[in-house]
């Protein structure tokens, strides 16, 4: 071990022996001052909470879009489509029945 390292070790060992002082006493009114400043601190939401909130919003928006789309397409969905069925049948007939 180098002399410099030994000097540092000796110094630190001596510093560790320094008296720690009396048990820390809380200054009078400290807790009250902290609590008085408490409302000023903005509560930072966690990433998990932000993600949860956004996911719920996206889910709501997606459901609304689904309802609107279904509303606009109601006529198409509800109507009988014999023409489409006939066209499909004839197309399949061409492919599978030579």
């Amino acid at each position, binding site marked *: 071990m*180098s002399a*410099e*390292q030994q*000097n*540092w070790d*000796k*110094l*630190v*060992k*001596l*510093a*560790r*022996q*320094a*008296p720690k002082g009396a*048990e*820390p*006493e*809380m*200054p009078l009114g*400290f*807790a*009250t*001052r*902290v*609590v008085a*400043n*408490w409302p*000023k*601190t*903005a*509560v*930072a*939401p*966690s990433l998990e*909470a932000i993600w949860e909130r956004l996911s719920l919003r996206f889910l709501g928006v997606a459901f609304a879009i689904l309802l609107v789309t279904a509303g606009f397409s109601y006529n198409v969905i509800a109507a009988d489509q014999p023409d489409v069925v006939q066209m499909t049948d004839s197309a399949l007939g061409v492919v599978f029945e030579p």
Partner: protein
Amino acid sequence: MADETLDMAACLTRVRARDEDAARQLVAHLYPLVIKIVRAHLPRRVTEEDLAQEIFLKIFANLDQYRGAVPFEHWVSRVAVSTCLDALRFHKRRPEVRWADLNETEAEVLDAVIQTENEPHPAHAMAANELVGKLLDCLSAEDRMVIQLLDLEEKTVAEIQQLTGWGASLIKVRAFRARAKLRQHLVELERGKKTKS
């Protein structure tokens, strides 16, 4: 005075519901723990009360992030250490310590450390502590934190990992580099003394 019988879980529930009495109780209970960390890592020109208050406000602001995976005191210690680290980063480090910066007792201690083979007298412990503080002021916030925890508080690498969130190898590398810098500062101090005398 810390209330040893505080029901932490109940108190935290009340604090989360923004009960001010419970918040005051929590501050009183945690004060000895927080102030001990603050005193160990206090930057120059910052009052310990201001830094302690900042730590408590951070604890309240981030209370929802505490999930109970570790004891609450461990979580508080980590918040306190990271706040102290931020405060140390904010304050400029001392460029160097010169022989002229030492008071009479600190100079005597350094003389005794450098020139004698024996252990210096324990009566000089306080001066040695102040001298080490001046030397630590020359380090970066992270280096200072590692040396304080490892060499002065004699914490294990695992304990420092828990407090800082740094990896074991990062802590060891930082300690190695910081000790090298401190040795260099000691050599320069000794050189400064020789030049002066």
